[in-house]
Each structure stands twice: as structure tokens, then as C-alpha cells.
């Protein structure tokens, strides 16, 4: 008979014992968190009130970008958590909400959407060494400074220069009456001053500069009358879309044909909705071409429409670009080093409608458009390459 020594296997009970207890341990242990903690980013801008159109568009776009990247698995396995704060377009609120964001642990802030708010809140970002990447703040006050402020748009100076040249050279305007909103003085006043300087250098005249404050009570009709009293050959309105539309309505009541110029700030659909026929032919510079055929833009527009069931505007585009730009930076970030340096190292970014390049102060240069309203929709009049 064959005799073979067989090592006896441990009895099944001895094997079952640890298994049984692990099952119990699993049953009574809290479910384990498998996901790493999310990467927090902040968005701050005005999302309520009369100037909310830019902020809401921006917030929507950033929300879309965050939803998209999270669907794609996040950044290095970490999901992005977006924290949105309303700066209500007041400096105190802007400072407060940015502090709140930093306290909540955001690694960067996308915002603000208006220049005044960016100017007000930037010291907070600088102090905490947190990147403030603005989609739409174009104030000259923040250009040429080595700080934590970055933006995906060009400084006002570029747009106001373009506008001055276009007005003088193409439209042959010589006497402009200027109106601007003090509620976003950081943007409007600089813009107006720049325009004036250049326009007058070219040989034109700014007949009058009238101001109003969006948050205060005023009469559109009266202000429009004040402007017309100086008998300008054109009107420059530097304000948000609704205010611009309302001023246009008043102006058209008396002077149906006078050319109206504006800043890019007003370039949203609210301008057309509220302005109706009064905004037809209005001219303003913008970094946004609503009818761009760039594939990234078309894809974005489709997604945006799908998500929010409305058209994206320039603020949407810039905010989306700011978000994707930030994601690119975060992708190569080790979680410890200063994001500012990485941002500066990645000076070019593929925008939705072409390349965006940042200078050493974090100011972008990109294509600019001269836009008008034709038959109730925006149309490109001219394109100025960077």
C-alpha cells in the first residue's frame, strides 16, 4: 500500500473563525471613505441684483466646467468642489466672501467678475497667497503688477484703445458724451479715462462725462437729457447691460440716430432683451464672438445651452476659460508649492476662441472683437488680433 505523508490542512473551523469575525467586523464598522478629499475652488462674483447677469453667467460656466471635470474623474483622482459666493457688488462683501472662501480651504478663487470687486478683494488674496483668477475684470489698475491677480481677459486699456481708434477712424466720430456707472468705478472710470486720453490724442473730444451709481435712485430720462445737452455726435455708455439698454431706450426716445458706443460689459443678451430696437447698431469691444465657429467654443456653447437652457455670454466664456485654465494648472500641482509660479510658467492657454497668453503680471492678451447688435442679435464688426 502506498504510504504518503500528507501535511494536514488546518481544520475548516480554524479557517472559518477569522473569516466569520471579519464579516462581523465589517458589518459593524462604518463604511470607509474611499474617495480622497475634494479640491476646493471658489467662485466669487455678483450673482444677485441688477448687475447679476455677468456673475450668474460666470457662475454657470464655472459650474459647468466643474461638473464636466468631476464627471471625467476630477484632478489626479480628486474631485473638485466649487464654492460660490455672492459679492453683491459691494467691496465689503467682496472682501468678506473671499476671506470665507480662503477659510473654507479653497486653493484658488475664480473672480471677481467686476473690476471694482477684484480691486477691493485682491489684498485678501495676496495676503493669503491665493490665486485670484478673474474672468472679466479688465481694470487697468491691476495690470502690470506682480501679485496674485490673474485674468483671462486683456486690461481695459486694450479695449478702450480699440474702441477709441474704431470710433475716430472707422466711425469718424469726434465729439463723444461719456456716461459711466460708479458702482463699478474700478472698471468704468479707468475705461472712460483711457478712452478719453486716446480719443483726444487722435483729435476727438469727450464733450462731457456723466456718472451714475447703479445702486442709487436716478432717472434714466434726466441723465440721457443731460448728455444730449452737450450736443455730442455720439454717446459712450460704460455700464452693465440693463442700464445700458435703459439709457439707450431714453436716448432713442429723442435722438433715434445718434451712434451709441459701449464697453464690453454690456455685451449680454439682457442688453438686447431690454433694449429692443434702441440698441440696434450699438458698438462695443469684446473678447467674445457669439457666432464663433471654433470647435471648443461650439462644444462649450452646446453644453452650456443643454445645462442651463440659455445662451452663454462673454462672461460665461471667460469664466469657463478661467476654470479650465485653473484645472490645467492644478493638474500639475503637487499640493504644496505656490500656484502663482506654476501659473506664470504656463503662460499660454487654449481658450474657447483661440489662444490666450499671459504676461509676467498675469494679464492676458487675446483676440478682440468689435461687436454690434443687428436685428436683435450680436454681430462682429471687426476683429483685432493680439
Amino acid at each position, binding site marked *: 500500500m502506498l504510504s504518503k505523508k500528507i501535511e494536514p490542512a488546518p*481544520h475548516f473551523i480554524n479557517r472559518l473563525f477569522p473569516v466569520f469575525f471579519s464579516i462581523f467586523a465589517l458589518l459593524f464598522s462604518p463604511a470607509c471613505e474611499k474617495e480622497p478629499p475634494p479640491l476646493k475652488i471658489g467662485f466669487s462674483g455678483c450673482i444677485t441684483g441688477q448687475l447679476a447677469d455677468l456673475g450668474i453667467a460666470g457662475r454657470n460656466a464655472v459650474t459647468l466646467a466643474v461638473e464636466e471635470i468631476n464627471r471625467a474623474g476630477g484632478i489626479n483622482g480628486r474631485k473638485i468642489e466649487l464654492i460660490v459666493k455672492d459679492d453683491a457688488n459691494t467691496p465689503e462683501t467682496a472682501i468678506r466672501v473671499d476671506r470665507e472662501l480662503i477659510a473654507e480651504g479653497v486653493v484658488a478663487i475664480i473672480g471677481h467678475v467686476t473690476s471694482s470687486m477684484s480691486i477691493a478683494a485682491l489684498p485678501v488674496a495676496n495676503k493669503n497667497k491665493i490665486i485670484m483668477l478673474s474672468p472679466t475684470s479688465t481694470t487697468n489698475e491691476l495690470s502690470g503688477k506682480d501679485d496674485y491677480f490673474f485674468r483671462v481677459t486683456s486690461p481695459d486699456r486694450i479695449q478702450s484703445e480699440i474702441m477709441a481708434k474704431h470710433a475716430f477712424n472707422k466711425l469718424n466720430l469726434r465729439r463723444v458724451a461719456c456716461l459711466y456707472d460708479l458702482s463699478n468705478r474700478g472698471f468704468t472710470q479707468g475705461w472712460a479715462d483711457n478712452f478719453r486720453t486716446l480719443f483726444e490724442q487722435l483729435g476727438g473730444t469727450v464733450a462731457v462725462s456723466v456718472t451714475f451709481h447703479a445702486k442709487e435712485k436716478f432717472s434714466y430720462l434726466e441723465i440721457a437729457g443731460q448728455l444730449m445737452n452737450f450736443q455730442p455726435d455720439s454717446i459712450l455708455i460704460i455700464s452693465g447691460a440693463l442700464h445700458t439698454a435703459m439709457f439707450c431706450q431714453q436716448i432713442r426716445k429723442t435722438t433715434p440716430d445718434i451712434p451709441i458706443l459701449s464697453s464690453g460689459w454690456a455685451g449680454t443678451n439682457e442688453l438686447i432683451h431690454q433694449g429692443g430696437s434702441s440698441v440696434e447698431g450699438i458698438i462695443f469691444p469684446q473678447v467674445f464672438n457669439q457666432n464663433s465657429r471654433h470647435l471648443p467654443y461650439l462644444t462649450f456653447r452646446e453644453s452650456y445651452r443643454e445645462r442651463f437652457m440659455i445662451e452663454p455670454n462673454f462672461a460665461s466664456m471667460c469664466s469657463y476659460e478661467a476654470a479650465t485654465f485653473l484645472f490645467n494648472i492644478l493638474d500639475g500641482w503637487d499640493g504644496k508649492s505656490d500656484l502663482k509660479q506654476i501659473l506664470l510658467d504656463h503662460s499660454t492657454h487654449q481658450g474657447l476662441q483661440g489662444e490666450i497668453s499671459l504676461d509676467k503680471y498675469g494679464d492676458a492678451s487675446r483676440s478682440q472683437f468689435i461687436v454690434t447688435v443687428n436685428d436683435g442679435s450680436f454681430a462682429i464688426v471687426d476683429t483685432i488680433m493680439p
Partner: protein
Amino acid sequence: MKAHNNSGLSPLLFFPGKEPSLQKTLTLSLLIIATLPIIVTGFISLEIMSQKMERDILDKNHAIATSIAGEVSRSLKEPLAILQHAQEMIDNEGFIPNGQKNRYLASICRTYPFFSSIRILDTKGIVRHIAPYNEDYAGIDLSSQPFFKTVSKGKKPTWSSPYIAVQTGQPTISLSYPLEKGVIVAHLTLSYLKNISDRIRIGGTGYAAMVDRNGTVIAHPETVNIAEQQNLKHLPVVALGLEGKRGTLRYTVNSVEWMGSVDIVPVTGWLVCVFQPAKEALSPLMQIRNIIFAGTATAILLAVIAALVIARNAMIPLTMLLESTVKIARGDYNHSIETESYREINTLAKNFNIMTEAVKSREKALKKDMEERRRLEEQLRQAHKMEAIGTLAGGIAHDFNNILGAVLGYAEMARFEVEGQETATYQIEQIVKAGNRARDLVKHILTFSRKGPQKRAPLEISILIKEALQLLRATIPANIEIRKSISTENTTILADATQLHQVIMNLCTNAAQSMEANEKGGMLHVELKTIDTGMKTEHHEFLLESTNPKTDNHEILPENRDIKIYNHDFVPEKVLPPELHSKPGIYVKLSISDNGAGIQPEHLEKIFDPYFTTKAVGKGSGMGLSVVMGIVKNHEGIITVESIPGKGSKFNLFFPGIPTEINRQIETVKPIEGGNEHILVVDDQEDMAETIQLLLERIGYQVTSTTSSIDALAMFRAKPSIFDLVITDQTMPDLTGGQLAREMLKIRHDLPIILCTGYSLRIDEERALAMGIGAFVMKPVDIKELDATIRKLLSE
């Protein structure tokens, strides 16, 4: 024993991983039995309940959504009805003059404060009338507003999406109603709808909200969501509603599970959504689940405790058993296990104890057997030594006796020769004296080696003892008391009175001497009694002469027949030597004891050796006890000694008793019979041959004698039939008695032959008898004995 490891802990006490551990098995079994049913039923009922409850909650939430949608629908009917009324008023030409229209609108606004403003637009979208009046808005072109486009085109009342009103900066919705020429638009702040959702609270954190057709919030308990125009399309339940479907969903947002229901407001296409965190909605379920979990945990805990207690109750005695087996395996048997556990285990422990006892006693017995064996070997060696000494001494003594006979004979003759010569006579007398002493010595030696002549006859030993003690009293010091306990019943033995006398004197003298050193004197106790070891019914009584309870050592008693030496250390007094049992019968026991110096244990084994003495030189020959031993053995008796140094010694002598009947028979032995048969006597010693011839002839026998064994054989060969019987000496030149006998028996095998010998070896005697020699007679020949033997042989 050395096989165990040196760590001190036996591997038996550890549980190697191969076999199942009893404790684990018990614990696991109990766990499974106690918890499995709870877990299974718990999970099944939990599953059924959670499904049903979820369904109920979703149905309930959906019902809430539906009811809110209905309420919104109804509440929207009021502004619609108002605008419809206004439209009728306005379109009815002349009913309200153009100049009165602003005032009319203002009155509506006042009456129904949910209208923030009402405007009338002409067909081109220009604001014609407005309330409350605001010149900024009068006359402006709102033709691009989506509501204007929709109403102008569809000619039916339209609710707008919320937008931020320029005047208020608040999200606003507008209700537009087509006029015959133009549109009437009423603006309602979304706070109007807020009242609806504010009322709806579901559970603690559940809420209702309303979104427009784009998914933007228009009613929400958190009004900031309205102001911020939050778009909720990313919520699956909102997305579902935007697809035009009503229903309920369970989904997860930011790791929080929600239960959402959606219904659609028919007029506007807005969605009413009811949200509730699943955790909250299902909290009763969670409670039940927790109860089940707690129950399961309790069951497990109890099962574990029960298992541990049961296993412990079982394991402690088992572990004790294990430990005990280890100890017992090491040879430590003094462990009895006391358990208070389950019946089976208690029984096991009890049986185990019994087993241990059995092993213990067997091991003890084995040990004793081994000791006994060693002792027996030692005794055998001693016996052989004594036998050898006896043989040598016997041989020397025999020859020396003959030589001494010649010396004494010639000395006697020489004395006659020198009669009158004083000096020579004196010297020869000294030779004779010395010769006699030598003869005594030889006699002693022969007695020791049992080769001396012996004349055993029935003897009443009690009389002999009394005589001996009388004699002894005169010779031993007066301060030694002699106590006698002499029984006179059945004390007859077959003995040589002289030798026995010598034994008693010797032992008593030794006893007296051992007490001489004691100034207070001593006591010599002589005891005689009869014992019967054959009476089985009273075996113990006879076995033991006293009630001494130390009986359990009896098994160590030796069985050697020759020498009985009992060490006082382990041989209790008054215990009979075992050979008395192997040869049951009546024995006469003579005990001689003293309270003298005693015998040192190391000497006990040697006291019977010839020439062994502890006495001073000249005080004793060292032959005394060896002679005593020889005599006792010759009498088929047994001698034992018990001694405690400093306290005394006791010698016990056992002689086979003679039954009274035999006693009488012996007493009536007939005188010499004699006969007339022809006997051939052969002895190389002429005087011996002559003496035997003369003695036999005197009692009537016809005798032919010769000193040569060769001649004897020749005579016999010549006429084998003329001799009726042959008596021959053993030790002869040429042919020994044995050889002669063998030759004769070859010729005539029925020839009775008597072999005479000065000493005998039992083995020789047996061999002689076996080869056909009829009898064996010791020298010097007693004529009575010889005649009896002759008569016995011839009559066979």
C-alpha cells in the same frame, strides 16, 4: 521522560493549528446558532420594509408635489383672471379712455399687491401705459423681450421665465396677456410664489421648490437661490421634470442621498419638486435597522459570553486533565483532578483519577518487583557462595577427619608405648587433646555444610528447651532475666537433640552476650508456639501473629529457602516468611529475642557466613551462627532474624511439626528386624567394611565384604544372583560407588543397592536414585537405619 522539552511547558498544553480547537468550535457554533437566524430574518424583513417604506415615502412626496402644483396652478389663475378682465375692459373700445388707462392699471396694482407693475405695450412693443407710472419706462421698446415675442406670436397668455427686473433688481416673472392691439404685461415678484414653497416642509430638512422650464429656481425656501437664479437642472429629478415627466427618484448629490419627486404646473410648465434626504426619509427604517443591528450585536455578545462560559467550564477541567496527563507522563502520580463541570467531564475526570491510581500502583508494583528481583539475585549469589564454601569445607573436613582418625589412633597407640614416661605421655596427651579439638571443629564444619552425621528422631522440643535454659541460667549473668513462653502442645519435631541443643545454646549465648554491656541487665525471651499455615479459613490469623496493621508489606517477603534475612527497616515484626505458605502445614516456632545491642543493618546479611564475627578476637570463633544455620536447614527449617540496633534482636526458627498421629507411629517404631539375605558390602576402608559386615551378620544377614570395588564387580559378575542386595561406599579408588552400582545394574537391573557416603550432595543423591540406586545412607552408619533401609528395599 526526557523526551519532553526543557521549557517546562509541555507542548500538549498548546493547541497546534491542525486540529480544531474545542473552544473555538463551541464559540463559533454558538455564534452561528444565535446570530444567523437573527441576521437572516433581520435582513429579509429590513429589505422588505425598506422597499415598502421607500415606495410610501416617494408616493407621499409625489402627492405633495402634485398638490403644490395644483395650488400653484390655482394661485396663478387669479392674476390670469385679473388680466383677462383687464383685457376685456381695455379691448372694449371706449370702456376705458386712453387717458384713464394708467390710472386703471394703477388701481389694479393697488388692489392686487402681488403685481409689482402692469404695462400695456402696443403692437410694436413700445410701452404705452404703465403703472405705477415711471417716465423711464414709458415709451421704451420692449419688442425684443421674449414674452412680447411669444405672446405676439401665440396670442395666448404667457408666463415668462424669471428675469432680473431693472427697477427692483429682483428676479421677476411676467404674465403677458394678448390684447387686440398689443400686450398687457403684469410683473410679479417671485416672492409671490415663495409663500407657497414656504409652507412646505417635509420632515426636518425636506422641502419643496419650484423651477421654471429652464431649471432655474423660482420658488425655494432659501430665497438666495431665487436671487442667484440657481439652475437645478443637474438634479436628476429636475432633469426628469424638464423632460416632461412626473415621478419620483432616488439619487445622490455630493455623497448625500436624496429622494425627489417632481410634478408639473400645467399652465406654466414649471416644475414643483419635493426633496427629502433619504437618510431622513428613511430614518424610521434606520431605527429599525439599528434595532436589528443592536439585537444582532447583543445576540452575538451573549453568544460569545455563553460560548466562553460553556467552553470555559468545559475547558478548565479539560486543561486540568491535560496538565495532569503531562505530569503523569512525567511520572508524577499524586494528582487527582477535582472538577465541577458537566457530568461527562466530571465522569471523565473521575475515570481518569481511577486510571491514574491504577497506573500508579502498577508502577509501584513494578518497582518493587524489580527491587525484589535484585534482592533475590543477591541472595542467590549469597546462597551460591555458601554452597561453595560448604562443598569445599565438607570435602576438606571429610578427608581431614580420616587423617585425624589416623593421628588420634596412632597417638593413642603411642601413649601406650610411652607409658611411664611423663614427658612423652604429657606431650601425646596434648596431641590427643588438640586432635579432639580438631575433631570438634571438623564436626562443626560438617554440620554447617550439612554433611555431618545426624540422628533425627521425634523430639519434644519444649522439654529440650527447658533443659537448655536450665543449663544456660547457670552460665549467663544474673542480671539477665530469662522469660519463657513455652507451649507444650504439638511441639514435637523430627530433630537431632544434640544439634538442636547446640542451636539453642548458641543463640541464647549470643543473646546474653549482646546484653552484657548493659549494666541494667536485660531480658532474654524464649518463646515456643505452634502455628498452622494450612488452615485457610483463618489464614490471616495464622499468617500474622499479632494485630499489627502493617500488612501491606507482606509481598516483599523473600522466598529463598536457604537464608532468611529480613531487614528491620522494611520487614515488620511477627510476619511469617512466605515459604511457610508455599508449604502449608504445622510449624513449631521458636523465637529467641533480647533487648541487647542489636545487629547493624550492614552486618545482617553476613551473620550466617562462616567465620564472620563482630566479637573481640578470642571471644568467638565466627562459626556459631553458620552452624546454627546449617542445623536448621538440615532440619528443613527456616531461620529469620529481626534486629533493631540498640534495641535488640530476635531470631525466629520454624521447624516442620509432626502431627500427633505420626508422632505416635514414630514412637512405636519396631526394634531391629534383621534378615537372612545375602548382602555384598564394598568399602575401601577395611575397618569400615568389617564393621558393617559384623553389624549385619549380628542381625542375621549373610554378608560378603570386600575393600576393592574391582573385586566386588568381578564377584558380582561371576554370580549375579547370589547377592540379594549391595551396600557400597561412594568414595573409592578405581571404581566409585556410583560407577560400581551402574555396572552392576547393567548386569542386574533390579538389584537393590545402598550407597553409603560420608557426606552427600543432594544433587548426587537425586542422580543416584534416578539411575537405579535404591537408597542413600549417611556415614557413620546407624545399624537401625541401615536395617530399616535394607528391609524397605528388599520388601519392594
